[in-house]
């Protein structure tokens, strides 16, 4: 049954025109609903403003360069050494926020170019082409600013997640992820999103946010142009696709960013006004941080489905400390809560100033779409399929014994085990050669104690990354009690992965 309408968007716009609209921010609405109840809040408030300012990797900008003389049909292009996608005709380019500079990878990328252009800075464009009868030019080098561009439009495929995971790391080493730097053994956590201030959290049934909704985007007015990719509102992981004019944006609300050892991205400021058309919307916008829940997930597991440790509220997350197991650890917000509030306040001011009017969606966003995993034609390969029998030795063996084993078994790695078959170190043929050269005789003196290992159920890709990160050529395979089950070598792994890549 349709809910009783309190007011229409047109009526609200009339009030905005007269400067009479009552506008409050989402966190103020939470307090109002708590104090006076839904009915009174619904009666009093016309519009609730929201805001978020976070790293949104599926962002970028479409630019149109105009034509050079003689003209060029750009095949490949770079701006400030960042490769730019060329999705359309001769002079249209898309600056992807997450594409990294070829000369300064992990430090400068597409997101930074967008920020620099917005700031009025000059950037260097380089492009190549194969040349045609109508577009004879094959190369161009020039400089551009935003004033030289015909169009410079932010066009983001997936922004404004309704909520996001809280990330932590169960591995015994630091990992660098798109959720930031995560300390070993659940040493910290990070989360994204602004909780009760988050735009989509305040309209979870997509009653007012749809195609054509006018929004705050990067410091100017932009639009929702559809559901975002991976939109899954059923599990409160809805997203939106947005567009806005970069030439009118400010770098206060659009920022290029670098996540160490992960890559570059773009911080995007988004604010959406929610018209309080009925009591239901007053109740929904009255949501508190305590009611916005998400999961703490172990990003230490390099799989698609990572283990969920427990549920957590944004109230607990915003307190800066969360409990993991029996420990309290610090949690970093990766999106700026300060800027989120600034955005909600700015949007409120625009509406009060009669410089921003609300829109009804031209079409509603889907509320039943699912985020499916990738279809893979080949199954996942695990370490157990490549595990060979390991050659082992004991700590009190002599270097000579081990050297003989290396020759007779034709291996390069000997795993040192204790009396129960548990791993206590590793020795390579290189270690033996060096020991002989320097006249050492005792095996205990040359054993490497800190051994990087794998388990039978680890995907081969994860094991391969360990080999390349640590610059080693084999991994002992152990079980949960550290008992040695075998060994995998880089040779066997590259045969498998290399064989696959050959079909790419």
């Amino acid at each position: 049954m349709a809910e009783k309408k309190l007011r229409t968007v047109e009526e609200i716009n009339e009030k905005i025109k007269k400067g009479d609209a009552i506008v409050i921010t989402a966190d103020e609405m939470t307090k109002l609903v708590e104090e006076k109840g839904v009915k009174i809040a619904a009666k009093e408030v016309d519009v609730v403003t929201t805001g978020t300012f976070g790293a949104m990797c599926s962002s970028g900008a479409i630019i149109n360069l105009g034509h050079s003389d003689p003209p060029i049909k750009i095949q490949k292009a770079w701006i400030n050494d960042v490769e730019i996608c060329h999705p359309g005709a001769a002079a249209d380019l898309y600056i992807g926020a997450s594409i990294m500079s070829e000369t300064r990878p992990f430090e400068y990328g597409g997101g930074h170019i967008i920020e620099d252009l917005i700031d009025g800075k000059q950037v260097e464009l380089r492009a190549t082409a194969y040349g045609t009868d109508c577009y004879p030019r094959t190369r161009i080098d020039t400089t551009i600013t935003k004033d030289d561009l015909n169009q410079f439009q932010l066009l983001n495929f997936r922004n404004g997640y309704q909520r996001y995971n809280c990330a932590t790391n169960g591995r015994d080493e630091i990992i660098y992820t798109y959720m930031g730097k995560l300390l070993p053994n659940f040493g910290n956590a990070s989360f994204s999103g602004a909780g009760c201030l988050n735009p989509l959290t305040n309209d979870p049934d997509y009653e007012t946010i749809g195609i054509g909704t006018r929004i705050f985007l990067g410091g100017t007015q932009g639009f929702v142009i559809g559901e975002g990719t991976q939109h899954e509102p059923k599990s409160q992981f809805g997203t939106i696709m947005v567009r806005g004019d970069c030439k009118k944006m400010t770098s206060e609300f659009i920022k290029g960013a670098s996540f160490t050892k992960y890559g570059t991205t773009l911080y995007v400021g988004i604010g959406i006004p929610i018209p309080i058309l009925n009591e239901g919307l007053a109740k929904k916008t009255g949501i508190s941080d305590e009611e916005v829940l998400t999961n703490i997930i172990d990003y230490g597991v390099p799989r698609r489905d990572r283990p969920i440790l427990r549920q957590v509220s944004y109230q607990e997350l915003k307190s800066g400390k969360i409990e993991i197991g029996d420990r309290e650890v610090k949690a970093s917000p990766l999106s700026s809560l300060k800027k989120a509030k600034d955005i909600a306040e700015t949007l409120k001011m625009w509406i009060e100033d009669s410089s921003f009017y609300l829109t009804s969606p031209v079409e509603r966003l889907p509320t039943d779409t699912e985020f499916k995993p990738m279809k893979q034609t080949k199954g996942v390969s695990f370490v157990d399929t490549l595990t060979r029998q390991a050659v082992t030795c004991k700590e009190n063996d002599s270097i000579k014994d081990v050297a003989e084993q290396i020759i007779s078994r034709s291996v390069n790695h000997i795993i040192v085990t204790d009396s129960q078959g548990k791993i206590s170190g590793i020795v390579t043929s290189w270690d033996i050669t060096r020991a002989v050269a320097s006249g050492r005789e005792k095996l205990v003196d040359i054993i490497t104690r800190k051994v990087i290992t794998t388990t039978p159920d680890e995907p081969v890709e994860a094991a391969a990354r360990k080999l390349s990160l640590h610059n080693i050529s084999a991994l002992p395979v152990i079980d949960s009690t550290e008992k040695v089950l075998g060994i995998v070598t880089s040779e066997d792994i590259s045969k498998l992965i290399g064989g696959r890549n050959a079909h790419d």
Partner: protein
Amino acid sequence: MTRVLLKFNENQVDQAITSQVIIEQGIPLNILRAHIEPTRGEILLEIPQDHVEQVVEAFQKRKVIVTVQKQLEIDEKKCISCGACYSLCPINVISFKQDHTVNFDEEKCISCGQCVDACPVRALRI
């Protein structure tokens, strides 16, 4: 309190130089961080303000390289108050103000550097 970084060479790492200085000068020194390898070592020390000169001299007499430690530098213009750094600080240098602005208590910083590469806008430096 002043922070200094002591650098020890291969011949000094196995000597009790810091203890000798403490006993000789009779001044309590606070060791904030120590990293010792077989061939070199580093200790970050906190010296009471009134005794900096004499303590530094005592270390220099023993051929230890002493540098006055620079602390965390924050580029306020770049900082977006995202808080990515907050959870990496082993002591409570980084906190949030009431309005969620990130606040740094640089005086307490032990220059461990954990926060530096966690900053997405590269606003931190040691």
